[in-house]
């Protein structure tokens, strides 16, 4: 394996990378011609609907589907009994893992319902209205149980248990203690007790954050056709066609090769479109009816039964010397798992103190079952909650020391060689460069004046993912290249991949025609998640380019009757080094492939190890209306190390999108559960996501510290921008009104009550 130092090519005169060409999928998107899952219409297609639990926690005593089955137009009604049994076995989903037994019970409840909206029965009928009518004819008898809705409720003495035999696994050992806490893990670096003894100032605070949803605009959907020959095709909206194939095949007890997943255009995912919900149901309904079956969730179903990301309780303690050195840090992270075990406390623990070089650290994480939908990844999952805690404590420390927040952070910054509490030692990272640039921005240097106005800053880390990617490309006779890759395109990745291939081959972005392929048409590719696509699939297309380049050189050598070593390839032009008058452009040679041995195709699969961690810093100015509690964002800037911005516009778009979602999380967004555990605000009217009308233009500053583990220095971009905003907003609110808020969201009511308490 190549060392990381050798991976980065160190190119300084990019031709394509760093430019802003029109994205390849742009025209389809702006003209409304792009095909999404809900656009699918197949001959003889049936429509499926799901009956969901009206209770947050209940035992299913009986299900009577006979009336629904007899309803005119209904073709099939299924329950969990129609899904093959599963073993208690963990499967990797790309970004997070799933237990197949749990996955089966999540797509259709067995024995118990564990959250409001938990799927119980699925129906296929001739149209969606008939299917909905049929849902009303299903009788489910429940024995309603008390729900637990927060980590505090769930861990209280005598709390109702979601799973009666669930015990806590602590530091790898089964404690045998029955509890909703499924896992306790710990990271230790140095000796935290000794570290705190060296501290002159110690700040310890407790934080609660609300459950929030990813808020992708396109609801989940799936259409499946189980053909008479046993071949299953699934069309759906997903971040990873291969993980849908894997999960669907497992749940249906089929070999993976028998399932083909066609990823449609995707209207957002943010981590929430990795787990299957509808795909296996549509497939089973199709098997039973012999017809294609389409299922599309309503917004309420999306909010009730998909996503969300964990609400959490975090205790965070940090110690510094009077000279401003952080000497010790300790945190307890308790995250909601939702109705099934597993969550993102672990990545939260990997991020919470990673912007800093701290010798003595201890982090304890707890995964806690609650009667909410099984939590799913959300843009740097776990890290935003964690940074809200640590970056608020840091702000309080800066205040105690009278230190500038950037000077303090620079004094303690993590950099190449710093050891993270969870083990890894940082390779080259751009944390320090972000802080240096942030300090010099016009925003930070500007004076903020006015009553009840304040400025806050915060930093964040996300480690990013590598995983597997595959791509292939064929050279057309006109010199253009058809690129086939397996990463579903959420944030402009087709453009970013085509541009890397163009750069490698010395061609133009528009010479490449990228397409996202189904699972039968491209090698295995993990999810578009972990900010990995431009990095890892980018690696793959770079290797595809090298493969094509080598073959084209051979073809030119053949034409010129020289050895391949005699042919140079520069900026898409092939030259015979022995006779410089012999030159051909890539396109000219492409037209001669027939006479030199036939078509040229390049291919590559990669699993690159050199993942580059990402840092960002956010500066926010707010104005607080002290008579209403309303927080207005006056100005927001993000400074982020992206390694190398392939298409800067889409990089900026990711940065702005992350900050926008982070601000929503900070100020408005929360799942409100009524006392019986039913979701009160299952619509976008009552679940308040900010719109562009609620935000100022978010200023972006791209820092480029190349990732040594990628030929073009790419790091991941998509996730880390959501990490600092809630803390930055909280710190700005404190600066404005002198009140610290420790709970999210910081909605007007909460701010107003905090102000009243202060007075």
């Amino acid at each position, binding site marked *: 394996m190549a060392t990381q130092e050798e991976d980065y090519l160190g190119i300084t005169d990019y031709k394509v990378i760093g430019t802003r060409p029109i994205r390849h999928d742009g025209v389809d998107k702006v003209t409304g011609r792009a095909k999404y899952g809900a656009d699918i219409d197949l001959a003889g297609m049936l429509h499926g609907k799901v009956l969901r639990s009206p209770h947050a926690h209940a035992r299913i005593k009986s299900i009577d589907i006979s009336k629904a089955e007899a309803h005119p137009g209904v073709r099939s009604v299924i329950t969990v009994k129609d899904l093959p049994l599963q073993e208690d076995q963990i499967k990797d989903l790309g970004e997070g893992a799933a237990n197949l037994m749990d996955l089966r019970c999540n797509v259709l409840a067995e024995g118990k319902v564990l959250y409001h909206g938990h799927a119980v029965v699925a129906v296929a009928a001739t149209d969606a209205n008939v299917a*909905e009518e049929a849902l009303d004819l299903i009788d489910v008898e429940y024995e309603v149980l008390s729900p637990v809705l927060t980590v505090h409720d769930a861990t209280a003495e005598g709390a109702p248990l979601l799973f009666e035999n669930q015990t806590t696994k602590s530091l790898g050992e089964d404690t045998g203690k029955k509890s909703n806490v499924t896992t306790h893990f710990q990271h230790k670096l140095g000796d935290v007790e000794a570290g705190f003894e060296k501290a002159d100032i110690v700040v310890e605070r407790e934080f609660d954050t609300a459950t929030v949803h990813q808020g992708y605009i396109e609801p989940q959907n799936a259409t499946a056709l189980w053909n008479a020959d046993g071949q299953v095709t699934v069309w759906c909206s997903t971040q990873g066609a291969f993980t849908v194939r894997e999960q669907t095949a497992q749940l249906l007890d089929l070999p993976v090769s028998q399932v083909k997943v066609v990823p449609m255009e995707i209207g957002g995912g943010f981590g929430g479109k990795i787990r299957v919900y509808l795909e296996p149901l549509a497939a089973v309904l199709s098997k039973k009816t012999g017809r294609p079956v389409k299922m599309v969730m309503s917004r309420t179903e999306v909010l009730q039964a998909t996503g969300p990301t964990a609400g959490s309780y975090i205790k965070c303690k940090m110690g510094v010397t009077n000279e401003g050195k952080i000497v010790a840090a300790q945190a307890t992270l308790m995250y909601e798992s939702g109705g099934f075990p597993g969550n993102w406390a672990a990545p939260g623990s990997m991020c919470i103190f990673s912007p800093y070089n701290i010798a003595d650290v201890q982090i304890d994480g707890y995964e806690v079952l609650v009667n909410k939908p099984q939590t799913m990844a959300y843009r740097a999952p776990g890290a935003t909650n964690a940074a809200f805690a640590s970056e608020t404590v840091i702000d309080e420390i800066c205040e105690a020391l009278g230190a500038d927040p950037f000077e303090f952070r620079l004094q303690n910054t993590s950099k190449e060689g710093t050891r993270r509490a969870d083990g890894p030692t940082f390779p080259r990272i751009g944390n320090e460069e972000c802080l240096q640039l942030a300090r010099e921005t016009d925003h930070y240097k500007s004076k903020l004046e006015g009553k009840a106005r304040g400025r806050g800053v915060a930093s964040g880390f996300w480690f990013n993912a590598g995983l597997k990617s595959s791509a292939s490309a064929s050279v057309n006779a006109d010199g253009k290249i058809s690129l086939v890759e397996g990463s579903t395109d959420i944030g402009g990745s087709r453009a970013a991949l085509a541009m890397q291939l163009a750069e490698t081959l010395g061609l133009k972005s528009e010479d490449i025609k990228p397409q996202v392929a189904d699972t039968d048409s491209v090698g295995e590719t993990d999810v578009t998640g972990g900010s990995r696509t431009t990095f890892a699939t980018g690696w793959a297309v770079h290797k595809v380019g090298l493969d094509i380049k080598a073959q084209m050189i051979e073809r030119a050598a053949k034409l010129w009757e020289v050895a391949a070593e005699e042919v140079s390839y520069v900026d898409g032009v092939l030259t015979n080094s022995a006779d410089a008058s012999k030159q051909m452009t890539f396109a000219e040679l492409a037209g001669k492939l027939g006479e030199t041995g036939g078509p040229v195709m390049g291919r590559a699969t990669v699993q690159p190890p050199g993942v580059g961690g990402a840092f960002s810093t956010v500066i926010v100015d707010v104005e607080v209306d002290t008579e209403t509690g309303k927080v207005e964002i006056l100005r927001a800037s993000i400074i982020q190390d992206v390694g190398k911005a392939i298409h800067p516009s889409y990089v900026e778009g990711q940065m702005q999108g992350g900050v926008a979602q982070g601000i929503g999380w900070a100020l408005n967004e929360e799942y409100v559960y*009524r006392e019986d555990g*039913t979701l*009160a605000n299952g619509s976008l009217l009552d679940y308040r996501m900010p*719109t562009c*009308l609620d935000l100022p233009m978010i200023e972006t500053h791209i820092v480029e510290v190349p990732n040594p583990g990628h030929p073009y220095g790419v790091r991941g971009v998509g996730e880390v921008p959501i990490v600092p905003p809630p803390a930055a907003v909280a710190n700005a609110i404190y600066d404005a009104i002198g009140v610290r808020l420790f709970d999210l969201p910081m909605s*007007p009511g909460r701010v107003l*009550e905090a102000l009243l308490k202060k007075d």
Partner: protein
Amino acid sequence: MNAFEYVNPSNLQDVPQLLSQKRDRKSVVMAGGIDLLGELKDNLITPDRLVNIKALDLRYIRHSKEGVRMGATTTLSDLVSDEEIVKTYTALAEAAESVASLQIRNVGTIGGNLCQRPRCWYFRGEEFHCLKKGGHKCFAVDGENKYHAVMGGGPCHIVHPSDTAPALIALHATIKIHGPNGERTVPAADFFLLPMENLYQETVVHSNEVVTEIFIPKPKAGTKSTYLKFKEKGSMDFALAAAAVALRVEGGVCKDVQVVLGGVAPKPWQADASALVGQVVTEERVVAFANTVLKDAAPLRDNAFKVTLSKTMIKRGVLALV
């Protein structure tokens, strides 16, 4: 959503008959359909018939020296873009403009805005058979009640969601209703009902009646009005607290003032502002007035902040016109 019949009468006289309720048949009026569609999709109502009133020629704004007449299906956008309404009946224009989004204002009507159903998440939640739906309990009392009423609540604690209603009451509007016995006209101030008066409907409009017209008398010269709305989210949201204010000051002295709150009670909450009449309007007096208006407020567990918000809206609304 259930299957239903859709009728499109072109004659107002036919409407009461079309709306008449038989034992197992329910009919509802449809104008813009904005709130109605939500009610249908949330299974809040399962009507057998929708009576569309958009073919009735009720979309008009007619100015005269007496005042302005607006047909019930006049859209909120129509109101916002009518210069005379903006100038003379400012509170109404501002209230209309504060509703939801442009797309919704282009479709939503003034009649529909007055007759929309409350947003209470127990009322809207299919799982809750609350008082308003014939049940035995207002779940907001012990439940998640941060958006609920702080005044006029009990036994049900909804807030009325209309933005235009407080403005119309502040401007002394009257509302014309057509029913089986012909027309009747009701002052906007008497149009809404508290739950203690009627649990199941928020207005005096019976199920076989339809709102046809709103009339606002021309305010006395020198009257200014405004609508101030506080939303949890800046864009596209309902009021957490709002104040419609109409004020006439002569020679520095308040001659007439109307203050109506939105978003805080089960109906638009008309404050008795007589204490301000004959006075010079100062911040101190307005604050004292706001405190008086809210002195009997009875907040629930999570919504005491709405009392403060309401006072702020009153203070800012009145002072904005001085």
